[in-house]
């Protein structure tokens, strides 16, 4: 029965695959063309060879912004993961009174449309002199990352047997000892999930970046959008630039995809 059905089922699958590959194809095939063969008329043709001119031009235009993105996402991902782990640990294994009330309040922060806090956020950043630069953006990503990182870690820690905690407390370990010697080593996989997720989220963010940073600190998303809106930069360079902007998260996805998927599903609240 199954083998009979199998063959024709590939038809819709391949059709859908074409739909998903199409943008990737146009990004790469255009990127690898030489300036001479770039033309809207032949945009679907394969490149005649491997040329890197488009990527070089795009890199020249986007390099400072790509580095801004790196300087943004690395601290943002690390700090919000550490905070999430501490919160998740306490909320799962060391509940204080009111913890069950606090958790949904934190979670809601993950869903809010950021337009509803944007004006106060900008005003606040101006007042503490973090407006315009990278560090204000790092702080923003750390704080608005707390809900999802807390959720992921809490769900993970909740699955660890209470007996482990109790056993080590009988052995005289305090809360920090339990965290450091038991929970932290066990949660390395969760750290990978959360780091990847926060890396991707911060790398791909546009709204916070466009509102909070000045051109010198623009991460790559804002710069790319600006590039695409300009009349001077050719579309082939835009395609190559899009690929450069997508490459870091794509590589993470290709090599650590399993973890990426887990992070995604954690966002659906149920871990």
């Amino acid at each position, binding site marked *: 029965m199954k083998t009979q059905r199998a063959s024709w089922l590939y038809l819709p699958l391949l059709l859908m695959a074409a739909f998903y590959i199409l943008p990737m194809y146009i990004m790469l095939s255009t990127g690898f063309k030489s300036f001479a063969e770039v033309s809207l008329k032949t945009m679907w043709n394969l490149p005649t060879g491997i040329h890197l001119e488009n990527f070089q031009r795009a890199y020249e235009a986007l390099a400072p912004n790509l580095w801004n993105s790196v300087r943004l996402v690395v601290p943002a991902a690390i700090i919000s993961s550490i905070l999430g782990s501490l919160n998740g640990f306490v909320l799962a294994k060391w509940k204080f009174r009111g913890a069950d009330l606090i958790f949904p*309040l934190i979670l809601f922060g993950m869903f809010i449309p950021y*337009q509803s806090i944007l004006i106060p956020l900008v005003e606040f950043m101006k007042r503490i002199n973090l407006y315009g630069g990278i560090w204000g953006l790092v702080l923003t990503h750390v704080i608005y990352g707390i809900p999802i990182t807390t959720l992921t870690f809490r769900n993970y820690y909740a699955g660890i047997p209470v007996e482990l905690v109790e056993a080590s407390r009988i052995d005289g370990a305090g809360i920090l000892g339990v965290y450091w010697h038991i929970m932290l080593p066990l949660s390395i996989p969760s750290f990978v999930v959360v780091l990847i997720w926060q890396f991707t989220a911060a790398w*791909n963010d546009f709204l916070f970046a466009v509102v909070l940073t000045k051109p010198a600190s623009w991460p790559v998303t804002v710069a790319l959008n600006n590039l*695409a809106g300009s009349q001077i930069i050719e579309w082939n360079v835009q395609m190559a630039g899009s690929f450069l902007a997508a490459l870091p998260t794509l590589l993470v996805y290709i090599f650590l995809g399993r973890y990426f998927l887990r992070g995604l599903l954690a966002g659906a609240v149920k871990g």
Partner: protein
Amino acid sequence: MSLSRDRLISIALVSPSILAVLVFVYGFIFWSVRVSMSNWVGLLPDYSWAGLANYRNLMHDPRFHIDVRNTVIFTVLFVAGCLALGLILAVLLDQGLRGETFFRNLFLFPMAISFIVTGVVWRWLMNPAQGSRISGLNLLFDKMGLDFLINQWYTTPYWGIGFIAIPAIWQMSGYTMALYLGGLRSIPDEVREAARVDGASEWQLYRYVILPLLSPITLTAMIILGHISLKVFDLIVAVAGKQLPLDVPAIYMWTTTFDGGFYNRGAAIGILLLLSVAVLVIPYLRYTLRTEAEL
């Protein structure tokens, strides 16, 4: 003694985060509400009281009407498209075909990319030019003899916003598929076998047995996708820039506040967006956390 010390440490560990969320989420929402009830226009803050005037003005604002209409069209197409495509892909991948992992990864990879990249690429794929300047998908259709598919994409009068749903579906349907696939995998084989023994055809099996079992997933997906579509912003900006026919509340808020200086109106739009998301998300959170507590 040591217990109460640990208690203090536990509170010390979480209080910076809790405080930060309380200030940056709830404090800032409250602050926005205050701005939305002020007369603040221009760079200098002006907190003089305006009551609900900004909200009333929005109700009579033709641009806001366009925004609401666009959001409704976009949301319906985007959510329906993602659910349908996600379900179909999940069912196809659940048939135990070879190459399943490859296809699953292929359908999911757009999730790793930013809406800006997606938008910039689709802007060229959905190039509305026709005739001698034809390009993008229109050119592809022309070459394949599918000329009847050639269209104006997001520049189509009135329905343009609906075409923005295509890249959005491209990006998010893989996620919906992953949700459904997880649900399909959790249905025990005995359920399928029992239905087959009772003489159900494959279609009946999916329609009357499996689909109802997947309804919690459909609900989850609808809420996640619905709240994403209410917030849609960067994708539209990257595809089409800021243009009135494709305006949505999130873009209106951005331009009126930071380009126009109408902080009062921008804050009101932000709060309305928040309310519309809250209506979706709060019951959902209550439901999920309660069922979780019962487990």
